[in-house]
C-alpha cells in the first residue's frame, strides 16, 4: 500500500508541481510550505546567549495583501557556561503585504500573531536538574518576501515575541546551578530573526 502511494505521488503529484502555477482570480487560496532557520535574541541577563534553531512553516493566503503563516520551530541556546535552554514554538501570524502589486520581486510585510512556547532550562553537568514551563505569547514584526520564481520565495523576518507565563531565571554559585520559577505570571520577551524558504504548492480556491 505504501509503495502504491509513493508511485502515485511520483507519477501524478510531482508533474503537477513542475507546471506553472495557475492562479485563479487573485492570490487568495495560495498555499505554500517552507523551512526556516532562526536566531533568538533573549534579553533576560548576560547569562542568556543567542539561540539558534530550525523550523517549518505553512502559509495560506486569504487575499492579495493578506497571508497567514503557521509555524513550528525549535531553538537552543547556552545559559552562560553552566546550563542550556531549549525553546519550542508553535503558532501563527497574519502577514500584511505593504505593496499593492501582488507579486513583485521584493514584497515587504508587517506581521502579528500568537504562539505557544515550551521552554526548558537544563543544567550542563546534571541533566536531572531542570526547570520547564509552557507559555502563550504575542508577536509582531516586519519582514521581506523575495520572490525568486513564481512558486519559490525567500523571506527574512524580524519579530518581537512577548511570552506571558511563569518566569524562569538561572544562577550559578559554588558549582551549583539553580533555576528559579516565579509565582504567578511574568513576561519574558525576545527578538526572533529568521530566514525561510517557501514553495507554493497550489491555489486552493
Amino acid at each position, binding site marked *: 500500500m505504501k509503495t502504491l502511494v509513493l508511485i502515485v505521488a511520483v507519477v501524478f503529484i510531482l508533474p503537477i508541481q513542475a507546471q506553472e502555477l495557475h492562479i485563479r482570480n487573485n492570490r487568495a487560496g495560495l498555499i505554500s510550505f517552507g523551512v526556516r532557520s*532562526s536566531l533568538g535574541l533573549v534579553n533576560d541577563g548576560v547569562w542568556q546567549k543567542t539561540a*539558534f534553531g530550525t523550523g517549518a512553516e505553512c502559509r495560506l493566503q486569504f487575499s492579495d495583501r493578506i497571508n497567514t503563516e503557521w509555524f513550528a520551530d*525549535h531553538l537552543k541556546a547556552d545559559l552562560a557556561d553552566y546550563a542550556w535552554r531549549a525553546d519550542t514554538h508553535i503558532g501563527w501570524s497574519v502577514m500584511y503585504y505593504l505593496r499593492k502589486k501582488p507579486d513583485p520581486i521584493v514584497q515587504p510585510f508587517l506581521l502579528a500573531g500568537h504562539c505557544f512556547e515550551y521552554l526548558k532550562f537544563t543544567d550542563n553537568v546534571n541533566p536531572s536538574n531542570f526547570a520547564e514551563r509552557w507559555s502563550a505569547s504575542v508577536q509582531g514584526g516586519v519582514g521581506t518576501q523575495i520572490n525568486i520564481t513564481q512558486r519559490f520565495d525567500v523571506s527574512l523576518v524580524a519579530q518581537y515575541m512577548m511570552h506571558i507565563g511563569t518566569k524562569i531565571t538561572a544562577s550559578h554559585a559554588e558549582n551549583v546551578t539553580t533555576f528559579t520559577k516565579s509565582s504567578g505570571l511574568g513576561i519574558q520577551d525576545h527578538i526572533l530573526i529568521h530566514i525561510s524558504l517557501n514553495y507554493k504548492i497550489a491555489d486552493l480556491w
Partner: protein
Amino acid sequence: MVKRSIFGIVLLIASHSFAQQNPDIIRAGLLKGDLAFNQSFMLEHKSKNVYLSGFLEYYSSKNLSLRGDCMWYMDSRQKDPVFKQNYVVLFGAVLHKPIGRNDLFGGIQPGMSFTQPVTPALSDNTLPLRMMPVLDISIGYTLYFSKFCNFFLSANYLASRYRGADNGSLKLDEFMISGGLGFHINTIRKQKK
C-alpha cells in the same frame, strides 16, 4: 594570463558543444539522487570526519530544486574523534545555473542533527545523544554526461552546536567536500513544440 584565456575559451567551447548535444536534461521534473562519502574538516577541532551521505532532489524548474539530504557519521581519520554518533537530516532549496549539460548550483538547507560527542577525558558525565538545529550552505557542480547518470562535486558548510557539554556548548562546524556518481530521471515527458 594567456593560460587563463585559453582555459576560458576551452570551457566556453566545451559548454556550448555539450549544450548542442543535449540541452534538455536539466528541466522541470528532473529527479536526482545519489549516495556518496563526504570528507569533513572540523573548524574548531583537529578532526577530519567521514560521512556516508545521500540526497534526493527534485527540479521544479531548470533553475530551482527542492532537496533533502541525510548524513551518517562513520568515523574520524584522527585517533581522538569528536563524535561518538552524528546523524544529520537537511531539507531546503537549491538554485541552479545550467549551461548545457553543466550545472552550477548553490543552496541553503536548515535541518536537525542527532549528535553525541565523545565524553571528554577529564569528565565523569557521558554526554547524551541530543537533537540539535543545524544550517547547511552548499555550492557545487554537476555534469550530466548521460541520460541517467551524472558526475557531481560539491562543497558545503554545516553550522552546528552541541548544547549542554560540561563547560558550555561545543562548536561543531564542519566544512565538507563530496563527489561521485549520481543518478537522475526526468519524471515529465518533454513537451513537443
